[in-house]
């Protein structure tokens, strides 16, 4: 790591945050970075049960389903962009890196691959062997011969400032994923760290390792923390 630029990084770990509040926080940070103010920030948090619907998502069945979803405790959130339905919920570690990408980082695919690398390295720290499964973006594991998705990734770039990010299933309630899938069929096999390890996993410990690997892979050094949670490293 000699002679690299070593930019600074703020880490924010606000705990459990409503999806809408998470969006607002991201918007603020993105606007700040677009003005070249402040520092790149890695936000690590949890969301209550929420389904986010992209613009294309509410054509058919989803609208019909919305009330039932709410009855089952899901917040439903329409996001003003294209794409699929995604699920977030307790036990998922959500990471929102808000980075103003440097010139040599301005490659959307390369950025996705680096996020995957951070999560693969983090999972390795917990002795879970994870890997990429091209062409599917995300992080996968193999369990009893089947490939299961343990982390989902989806990002947004606004003038090369990143937002959104990843969702790593740490102690996630996997049955919650079923509600976004018809026919009682799950969209793909999903996995969660606790199910793989057979024991509940400390979310903070996972977040700590994410920060460590994020620093290394994105070559940014933690310069500030906020919201109480110390970064142990």
């Amino acid at each position, binding site marked *: 790591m000699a002679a690299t630029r070593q930019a600074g990084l703020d880490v924010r770990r606000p705990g459990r945050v409503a999806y809408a509040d998470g969006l607002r926080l991201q918007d603020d940070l993105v606007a700040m970075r677009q003005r070249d103010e402040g520092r790149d920030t890695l936000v690590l948090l949890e969301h209550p049960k929420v389904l986010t619907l992209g613009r294309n998502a509410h054509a058919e069945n989803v609208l019909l*389903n919305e009330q039932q979803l709410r009855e089952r405790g899901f917040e439903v959130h329409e996001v003003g962009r294209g794409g699929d339905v995604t699920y977030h919920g307790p036990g998922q570690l959500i990471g929102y890196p808000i980075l103003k990408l440097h010139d040599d980082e301005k490659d959307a695919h390369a950025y996705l691959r680096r996020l995957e690398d951070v999560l693969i390295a983090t999972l390795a720290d917990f002795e879970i062997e994870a890997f990429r499964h091209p062409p599917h973006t995300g992080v996968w594991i193999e369990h009893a011969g089947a490939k299961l998705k343990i982390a989902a990734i989806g990002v947004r770039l606004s003038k090369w400032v990143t937002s959104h990010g990843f969702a790593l299933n740490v102690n996630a309630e996997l049955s919650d994923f079923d509600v976004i899938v018809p026919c009682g*069929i799950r969209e793909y096999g999903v996995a969660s760290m606790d199910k793989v390890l057979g024991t509940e996993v400390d979310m903070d410990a996972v977040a700590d390792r994410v920060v460590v690997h994020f620093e290394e892979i994105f070559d940014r050094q933690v310069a500030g923390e906020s919201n109480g949670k110390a970064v142990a490293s």
Partner: protein
Amino acid sequence: MATEVTMPQMGESIAEGTITKWLKKPGDPVERDEPLFEISTDKVDAEIPSPASGTLTEIVVNEGETVEVKTVVAKIAEGDEASGGGGSETPAPEAESAAEDKPAESAPEPAAEAPAPEPSKSESSKPASAPAASGNGGTATREERVQTKSSPLVRKIASEHGVDITQIEGSGVHGRVTKDDIMAHIEGGGTQTQTAPAPQKQQQEQAQQTSAPAPTAASGPTATAGERDRVEPMTRMRQVIAERMVHSVQTSPHVHTYYEIDMKRVADIRKKTKDAFLQRTGGAKLTYTVFMMKAVIDNLAKHPAINASISGTDIIYHDYVNLGMAVALDGGLMVPVINDAQDLSMVGLAKQITDKATRARDKKLGPDELQGSTFTITNPGSFGSLMGDPVINQPNVAILGMGKIEDRVVAIDGAIAIRPRMYVTLGYDHRLIDGATAEKFLSGIKETLENFDETAL
């Protein structure tokens, strides 16, 4: 001076992008670096800033369209013309040549690159029935038509094949020439006529479900978009579904019949074995659909007429079960097929269900995985329906719909009991299947599920 706005290169390995939203409309003033449109490429959404200040004069590539990197997607007129018309609703931009004043942006064409559930080779059958554009109907010049009634992709294809776009009747909104139109024109030897072939003729050739015939909506009342309406192009998937559904109801006289099944035994078995089952499948769940598939497969063997197809005046009996399963997707549905389902254990079925549904959602199914079904199952119950009347998935002759399982009060042996119950619908083609056959099949399903053989697990 006009500045051409192009699809940006978002990464070395990224060759194309889909425009998901225009943040400005033609006539709007734009500032350099102000967000102009949003694009989406594999898991990345990006907001693209304007490369120049001025007035947005033309949107060349509409929302929903996918184009190669560096394709021109819009034009901006720079300079003084961009007089501050901030809140004005003036539809026509003041800059640029007259030809570009036409509000072409109001006529998005169907997304050329929308995920196609399967290769369709019969787009030529699409009726050329788009309502004439309101603004630039008969008086449009050749250049205008070329400019406004086609996308860059279509124009590129046209120039590669030496085709004159103005000679093609567009089927898109406001008569736009779509990629499908031009491909049909080229495949048809450049002699596409402006009248759609009769659907009946097509059906003969299409008995094997390789493609879908034209929807025939020609004679009814037609919709025209007014000022307060919003026009969006159908995705390719939507078009295929529309064609298929019309074709099916025109082909098969549908009859629906219903059974109510007591699911207590299945629920008990499922509860007892689901965790061990999950271990065995490595993540694929023991859903009620798995039980239903097993029951369907066993009973199809006893009732060959249900697992059949019609070809002209012949009946084709299938001695295997290629099971179609309807999977709802954002904005549509697909029916992936589990081939030779009769050879699979319940573990195998569960794995297939998970795999096919995953890849349906990820749009990673191959065309061969979406055809060749001999019978289809759909599960509207997962959304809460008690029962439904599903449309047959051609060229099948029957479809089974699962209702929601819910606890109901029932009389059992003279006593009142609360039991998990499910309505099951069989939709069948009365050309081939008579009521008695359908009843026997459904009662067999009921029998199988209510006395489910645990050793099948």
